């Protein structure tokens, strides 16, 4: 078990700065997920922790040891690669025990460890097969077993589920969560899929262009995004945002300058009664996606195209609808994308009588 600290880490590839200055603490025993669009530096960060990539500047600490100059094999880190990186010429057993052999573990101990691990991941019948005779899910398990058998302080997983089909991915996701519970080891997991991040992580680090946007628990990220990027990245469908210029009929009192407004598709109400106090937008339904328990509508309004999600409600058939977003569910962002929280008061614009005596 180990705590990982990244202090003032930067990474340059030739003249290209991928990560300008990154500070991050990964708590001991946590399941931390690095998530972001491709090219955001999440995999590079992970590879620097594993020692497969050398940082251009800064320090990496695992527990109380600075590992800047420690080779990957001595960092007590195990990694699961996206393409599994199994040794194709070795059997499943050979793959699992290769790391143990290199550490000089005695044969009898190796056999016990391999048997135990293969029971846990359900590989016992396949120990003498070669990786290419296995299915994608089984290869994934071999990769996991190979990492687990070394009993590392830190587990590093680089998009391990992205080569699996949807059903298997869901299954492996729960298995990984259970595995983390059972082992209690620090997991660092990289994915570009925010659903995966939300469902697995207890700490999620949202990254964009080499900069950490927010590091928080899943619920905090969802309910309380710190900036426009996180707000738009987390959630399916993404948060609806519109420029403040396009907003009609909303009166906002704020300390700062509000550049844009956002709301979650699932917090908007379709054709709500007048008792709901909220911002009302009228629009036309462009598409309806009915997924059974939930429906997703794409609605075109004067301020752009939005998504609205409803649960266990009958499918709206009308073409024109009224969308109400309760005031407390509106999010405000400043010109730099930063979230504005304090001192905002919203209400419907009062029609001012013009002229008259």
């Amino acid at each position, binding site marked *: 078990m180990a705590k990982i600290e990244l202090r003032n880490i930067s990474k340059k590839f030739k003249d290209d700065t991928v990560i300008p200055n990154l500070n991050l603490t990964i708590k001991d025993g946590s399941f931390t997920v690095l998530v972001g669009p491709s090219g955001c530096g999440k995999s590079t960060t992970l590879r620097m922790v594993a020692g497969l990539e050398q940082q251009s500047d800064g320090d990496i600490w695992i527990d109380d040891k600075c590992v800047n100059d420690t080779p*990957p094999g001595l960092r007590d880190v195990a990694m699961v*690669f996206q*393409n599994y990186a199994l*040794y194709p*010429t070795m059997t499943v057993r050979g793959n699992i025990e290769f790391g143990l052999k290199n550490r000089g573990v005695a044969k009898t101990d190796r056999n016990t460890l391999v048997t135990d691990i293969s029971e846990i991941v359900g590989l016992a019948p396949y120990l003498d097969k070669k990786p290419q005779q296995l299915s994608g899910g089984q290869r994934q398990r071999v990769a996991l077993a190979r990492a687990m058998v070394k009993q590392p302080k830190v587990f590093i997983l680089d998009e391990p589920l992205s080569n699996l089909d949807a059903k298997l991915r869901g299954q492996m996701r729960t298995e990984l969560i259970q595995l983390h519970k059972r082992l209690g080891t620090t997991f660092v997991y990289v994915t570009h899929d925010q659903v995966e991040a939300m469902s697995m992580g207890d700490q999620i680090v949202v990254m964009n262009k080499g900069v950490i946007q927010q590091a928080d628990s899943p619920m905090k990220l969802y309910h309380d995004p710190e900036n426009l990027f996180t707000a738009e990245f987390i959630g399916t469908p993404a948060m609806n945002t519109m420029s403040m210029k396009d907003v009609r009929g909303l009166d906002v009192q704020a300390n700062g300058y509000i550049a844009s407004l956002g709301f979650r598709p699932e917090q908007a109400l379709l054709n709500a009664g007048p008792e709901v106090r909220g911002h009302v937008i009228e629009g036309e339904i462009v598409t309806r996606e009915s997924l059974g328990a939930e429906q997703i509508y794409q609605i075109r309004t004067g301020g752009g195209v939005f998504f609205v999600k409803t649960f266990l409600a009958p499918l709206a058939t009308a073409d024109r609808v009224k969308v109400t977003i309760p005031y407390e569910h509106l999010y405000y962002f400043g010109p730099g994308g930063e979230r504005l929280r304090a001192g905002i008061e919203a209400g419907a614009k009062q029609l001012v009588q013009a002229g008259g005596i």
Partner: protein
Amino acid sequence: MTLWAKLRPYGMVAPAILVFSLFFIYPIFYMIYLSMFDWNFVSPTKAFVGLQNFQDLLSEEDFRKVLTNTSIYTILTVTLTTGLALLLALWLNKRNIFHGFVQGAIFSPHIISLVSISLLWSWLMDPEYGLLNWVIGLVGFGKLQWLSHPSTALVSLVMVAVWKGVGYNALVFIAGLQSIPADIYEAASLDRSKPWTTFTKLILPMLSPTIFFLVIINMIGSFQVFETIAIMTQGGPINSTNTLVYYIYENGFRFFKIGYASAAGVILLIIVGILTIVYFKLLSNRVHYR
């Protein structure tokens, strides 16, 4: 299905089949047929002698020397070419201008005709005026006889063959090395694998199809060595570089013992055939294909 649609595939392969039959299948059978006759190429009659040619060949001292020479030449050429090429490939398996240049330089002998190479090396290996003796003279060694002495002639020919073949072999090895994904090396480094372990336990097994291919190609090529011998040594001195194909050529086209040469050709065919089969049976189980 129309008649044309049925015939079309046969029509498509017919030219290849025709050429193959005419220049490969027919000569093989004709050679086997000729090996049982005594014939001098010009006389209108061929005398049937049964297996007498084979009996004579196998009891002849010269022929046994020829077989030994060919085996030594093949074993040395194949191991040295493949081994050196692998070392070179491991060194060149990086992308920069210098490595690109070296790669091009060692590959260039492959595209030069063997006649030019043979002449070039004959000069280089000249005992009196050759560059090689001059260079080893500078280092302080005495002159070597190279092609002119029975003890060094065969090894000198091996040197030429290795020089010609190593670039091509290295290129094939580099292609093989580059097909190994980078994350295998990374996984190995996380598994605390030492460089030597990574090489012997991971890289070599993953290269086994490449090694297999090159050894087969080199072996068949070495067994049929002819041009360098014809130009550089004519089998001499004292038969020390006489190999199977050169022996066949001499008997057939200089002494006009066509039946005798054909019998030697049949033996070459059998040897190469057996080697290939044994090699495939024995090693294909140990070769890893993806």
